[in-house]
């Protein structure tokens, strides 16, 4: 029984890490190092590679567009989506020029963008909320989106939104 299970696992691994020339099993790729799902990559004529990644919590989705050039990693754009029922709506977007990507930058930018979105909505509604409270909530949402998929209590139902973003 143990050797049968071992053979099944080996078969599973070989589907997830196929040999050159063999198609890979279509399963969303979780990148623990960047704390996001990778949506796919392409290589330009110059040999630079570009990829998209998303991370999310129950309230927001953050989408990154990243470019690799030689040994450097650049952030090309950041998008924040909010939920409207089960659909996603783009609420904030920022494009970047020659900006090196690092996690601290992504967190700070996402928090600022989310603050801007929330502040705008509050103003449109004619309400008055302490900016510090807005900042706190924005930080909480962004922090929630950096939760690892590998954590036992990650809400796996959220991955149902992935097909919307891959389209």
């Amino acid at each position, binding site marked *: 029984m143990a050797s049968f299970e071992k053979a099944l696992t080996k078969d599973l691994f070989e589907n997830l*890490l196929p040999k050159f020339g063999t198609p890979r099993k279509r399963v969303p790729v*979780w*990148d623990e190092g960047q704390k996001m799902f990778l949506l796919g990559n392409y290589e330009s004529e110059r040999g630079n590679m570009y990829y998209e990644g998303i991370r999310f919590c129950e309230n927001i989705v953050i989408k990154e567009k990243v470019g690799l050039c030689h*040994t450097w990693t650049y952030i090309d754009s950041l998008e924040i989506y909010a939920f409207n029922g089960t659909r996603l709506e783009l609420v904030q977007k920022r494009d970047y020029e020659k900006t090196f990507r*690092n996690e601290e930058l992504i967190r700070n930018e996402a928090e600022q963008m989310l603050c801007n979105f929330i502040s705008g909505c509050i103003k449109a509604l004619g309400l008055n909320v302490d900016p510090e409270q807005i900042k706190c909530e924005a930080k909480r949402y962004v922090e929630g989106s950096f939760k690892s998929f590998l954590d036992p209590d990650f809400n796996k139902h959220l991955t149902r939104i992935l097909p919307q973003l891959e389209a």
Partner: protein
Amino acid sequence: MATTALTRLAEKALPALSGASVTYNPEKNVYLTLGYTSAAGNTYFKAVRFSDRLAVHYDIGEGYAYTFLNGITLFAWDGNQAVIIGKKMWGGCGNWVCFSERFALEQTVQMLKNYLEGQAKAIGQCVSEQQLLTFSRQMVNDVQTYQKRIA
């Protein structure tokens, strides 16, 4: 026939090089891109190893006194195309890492293990930590030896 297939693999196996050419360094058993030297005098280059299942890019920075590991990018194959399956970066305030083969290898094993763990979770499969690590280590060890076969 086998040589042609391996050469084709080598040409395809080096994704995201931004047009840089590579040379094989037999002493280090690794493919190296040409370096870029910044105004500050630091030199940056990639060290690449691959197998028929994985490609690993190490982003290296040579400073005045130290050689740093700035990042590792891990690729799997989807047919003939390279697919990013993991990326980890170092550098910035308090986060500098000096390059060592052992550290780079262990990080690569961990990254591959995380990838496989995520994939297994996504398809609802339960795999033990031990199996994940054993397979990952075997795959990364294969990458270490593959270059000599085709160089």
